[in-house]
C-alpha cells in the first residue's frame, strides 16, 4: 500500500511552465552578496595570471585583455540576467589554483569513456594539458590537422590568431574572459576544404585534484568539409575541481559539423563550458549537449548564423539528482536570412536537484525567412526537484516563422497505472517512462555507439536504490 501512496503523491499531469516559473526570490538575494563575501578570489586569479610563462605577443595581449575584463566584470551574480537562476557563489568563494599537469590516468582508463571505440582518434588532456602518451593517433588523412593548441602556438602555426578570441567574445562573459586570461592548451582541429572525415575526433578531458583548468579548443572547418567532434569532460574520482572550458568553432561555407559536448564531470566538480560557433553560408551545425555531472555546472552553446541559409540544430539532455545544479544556456543569433534553427532540450530532475534552461533566439532585422523552433521539456521525478525554464524569442524581422515552448511535468499517473496493470512494477515503470521521455532527443544522436551508451546511461541513472 505504501508505494501506491507514494506513487500517488508523485503524480501530476504535465503543466506548461511560464517563463521562469517557480523561481525563489530569496535565491537571488543570497547570491547577490557573493563577491563581497569572497574578496580574495579575483586577486588570486590575478596572482596566478602574473606567474604564467610568456607567450607570443598576440597571445600575451589577448590574455591581458581577458584578465583585465575579468577583473572588471568579476564573477556574475544572479542580478545578471544570464545568471538569474544560477548562483556561482560556490565557484567564486573557493580558491582554485591552476591544476597540476599530469595526474594519475592510465591507458586503461580511456576505455571507460571511448564508447568501445578504441579506433577513434582520441585526444586526451589531463587537467587541461595535452597528453601525447594517452592519446591515440588514428590516421585521418592529409586534409585534417589535429594538434594541441599549446604546440600550435609554440610552432607559430599561421592563422590561429584569426579565430582565437574573435569567436568567443568576452566583453560580457566573465568566465570566457577568465579562460582567455589563462589560455594555454586544448585542441586545435582544422578540417581542409572538401574533406569528409568519417571517423569522429574525440577530445577527452580528464580532471582530478582541486585545481582549475581552462581548456581552450579551436575547430575550423573548410568549405564543404564534414566532420564529427566529441568533447568529453570526465573524471575518475570525486574531487572538487573546476573546469572552465571554451571552444571556438568556425564553420566554413557549406561545411557540416556534428558536435557533441558530454559533461560527465565528478559529482563534486564545478564546470563552466562554452561552445561558441560562427557559421558561414550553407553550413550546418548539429550540436548535442549532455550534462549529467558536476555539483554546479553551466553549459553555454552559442551560435551565430552569419551566412545565408546556414542551419543549426541544438539538442540537449540533462539528468540531475542529489543536490546538483545544472544550467544550460543557448543562444542562436539569426544574422543572415533563410536560416532554419531547431532546438530541443530535455531535462530529467530527481532528488533536490535544480535544473535551468535559458534559450535565446535572436532574429536580426536582415534575417528574413528565419524558421526557428525551440522547445524545452522537463520531467520532475521528485517533489523537491526544481527547474527554471526561460525560452526567449526576440524578433526584429517581419517575415519569419518562430515558435518556442517549455513544459514541466511529472510522470504521467495514467501511463504509470497502465504499465502497472500489465504486470510492470512501479520501479521498472518509472525507468521505462523516464527513458521514454528522453527517447526523442536521444534518437537525434547519429553516432550509434554514443547513442547506445547514452541510452544505457538514462536507463541506469534513476534506479531507486531504496
Amino acid at each position, binding site marked *: *500500500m505504501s*508505494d*501506491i501512496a507514494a*506513487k*500517488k503523491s508523485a503524480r501530476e499531469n504535465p503543466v506548461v511552465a511560464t517563463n521562469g516559473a517557480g523561481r525563489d526570490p530569496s535565491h537571488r538575494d543570497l547570491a547577490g552578496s557573493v563577491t563581497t563575501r569572497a574578496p580574495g578570489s579575483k586577486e588570486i586569479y590575478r596572482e596566478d595570471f602574473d606567474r604564467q610563462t610568456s607567450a607570443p605577443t598576440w597571445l600575451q595581449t589577448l590574455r591581458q585583455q581577458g584578465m583585465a575584463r575579468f577583473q572588471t566584470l568579476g564573477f556574475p551574480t544572479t542580478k545578471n540576467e544570464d545568471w538569474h537562476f544560477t548562483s556561482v557563489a560556490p565557484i567564486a568563494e573557493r580558491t582554485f589554483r591552476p591544476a597540476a599537469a599530469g595526474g594519475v590516468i592510465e591507458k586503461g582508463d580511456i576505455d571507460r569513456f571511448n564508447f568501445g571505440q578504441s579506433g577513434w582518434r582520441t585526444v586526451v588532456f589531463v587537467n587541461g594539458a595535452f597528453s601525447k602518451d594517452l592519446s591515440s593517433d588514428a590516421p585521418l588523412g592529409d586534409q585534417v590537422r589535429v594538434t594541441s593548441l599549446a604546440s600550435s602556438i609554440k610552432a607559430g602555426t599561421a592563422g590561429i590568431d584569426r579565430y582565437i578570441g574573435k569567436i568567443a567574445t568576452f566583453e560580457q562573459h566573465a568566465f570566457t574572459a577568465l579562460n582567455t586570461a589563462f589560455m594555454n592548451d586544448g585542441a586545435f582541429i582544422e578540417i581542409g576544404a572538401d574533406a569528409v572525415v568519417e571517423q569522429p575526433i574525440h577530445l577527452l578531458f580528464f580532471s582530478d585534484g582541486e585545481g582549475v583548468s581552462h581548456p581552450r579548443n579551436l575547430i575550423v572547418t573548410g568549405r564543404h568539409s564534414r566532420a564529427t567532434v566529441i568533447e568529453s569532460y570526465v573524471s575518475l574520482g570525486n574531487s572538487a575541481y573546476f573546469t572552465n572550458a571554451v571552444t571556438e568553432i568556425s564553420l566554413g561555407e557549406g561545411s557540416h559539423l556534428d558536435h557533441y559536448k558530454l559533461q560527465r564531470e565528478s559529482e563534486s566538480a564545478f564546470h563552466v563550458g562554452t561552445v561558441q560557433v560562427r557559421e558561414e553560408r550553407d553550413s550546418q551545425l548539429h550540436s548535442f549537449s549532455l550534462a549529467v555531472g558536476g555539483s554546479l555546472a553551466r553549459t553555454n552553446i552559442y551560435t551565430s548564423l552569419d551566412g545565408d541559409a546556414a542551419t543549426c540544430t541544438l539538442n540537449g539532455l540533462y539528468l540531475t539528482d542529489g543536490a546538483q545544479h545544472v544550467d544550460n544556456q543557448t543562444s542562436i543569433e539569426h544574422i543572415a536570412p533563410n536560416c532554419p534553427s531547431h532546438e530541443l532540450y530535455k531535462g530529467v530532475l530527481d532528488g533536490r536537484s535544480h535544473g535551468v534552461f535559458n534559450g535565446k533566439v535572436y532574429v536580426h532585422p536582415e534575417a528574413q525567412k528565419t524558421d526557428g523552433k525551440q522547445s524545452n521539456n522537463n520531467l520532475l521525478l521528485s517533489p523537491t526537484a526544481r527547474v527554471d525554464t526561460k525560452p526567449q524569442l526576440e524578433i526584429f524581422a517581419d517575415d519569419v516563422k518562430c515558435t518556442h515552448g517549455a513544459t514541466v511535468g511529472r510522470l*504521467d*499517473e*495514467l*501511463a504509470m*497505472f*497502465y*504499465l*502497472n*496493470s*500489465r*504486470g*510492470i*512494477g*512501479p520501479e*521498472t515503470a518509472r525507468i*521505462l*517512462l523516464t*527513458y*521514454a*521521455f*528522453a*527517447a*526523442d532527443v536521444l534518437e537525434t544522436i547519429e553516432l550509434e555507439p554514443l547513442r547506445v551508451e547514452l541510452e544505457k546511461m538514462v536507463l541506469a541513472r534513476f534506479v531507486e536504490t531504496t
Partner: protein
Amino acid sequence: MLEINDLHAGIGDREILKGISLSVKAGEIHAVMGPNGSGKSTLAQVLAGNPSYEVTRGTVSYNGLNLLEMAPEVRAQNGIFLAFQYPVEIPGVSNAYFLRSAYNEIRKANGQEEVDPLEFLDLVEEKLKLVDMDESMLSRSVNQGFSGGEKKRNEIFQMAVLSPRLAILDETDSGLDIDALRIVAEGVNKLRSPENATIVVTHYQRLLNYIVPDYVHVLANGRIVKSGGKELALELEEKGYDWLQGAGTAGAVA
C-alpha cells in the same frame, strides 16, 4: 474465481459503487451493462487496482486471495487483465518492448524464465493475426498515433499475449465500427477456455451478439439492479435503461 461482496468505492468524497456483489466462476462470461455514470467503468478500474479510486467498504476475493490488498502489478502477475476503455499512449516505448517487459515480469513473478526478443517475436506472431494487425505495429510507440480501432485491437492483442485468467473488457466496443467489433469479439472468443473468465463491461447490447455472455448484470447508480441470462441484454435493448432504473432504484437518477 472472483467473489465481490458489498463493494463500495469512489473518488474523494464521491461514492460511485454503492454495494456491488458479484460472483464469477471459471469458464464464465459476465456482461456488466448500464447507462453512463452507473459505475461500470469504476468497477473495472477498481478490480484492476487503479489507485485513483478508493475502496471504502466490502471485500473482493480472487482465487482465495484478498484482491484489494494487491498492488496493480501483482494483480496482473496473478492473471488479471484490464482492456482499457481509453488505452494510454506512451511515446518513446515500442509496443514490442512494452509487451515483452510485461510478459517477462509476469513470468518472473510466476517463477518462469524470461524470454529473449527473438523467442518473443515468434510467440506474438500468431497473436497478431488473431486481431488482424501487422507486425510493423510492434516497432511503433505504444498506442501513439493509433486510430481508435487500432488501440482497442492492441488491447485484445496484449490480452492474447498475456493470456490472463480473468479478463475485464472495459467498453472495448465503444467507438468501433462493425468490422473492428467483429475482430475484437473473435479475438475474445478464441481466447475463451474453461479455466478463464471474462467480464465484459458495455453500454450497448451490440457486442453481446458476438460475445455471448452466460450472465448479464445491469448496473444503475452504483448497484446491480438486475441480473439474468443473455436474454436480459435483448430485453434491455428493446426497453431501454429507463425501464430498470425506475424499477430497481426507486426513483434514483443516474
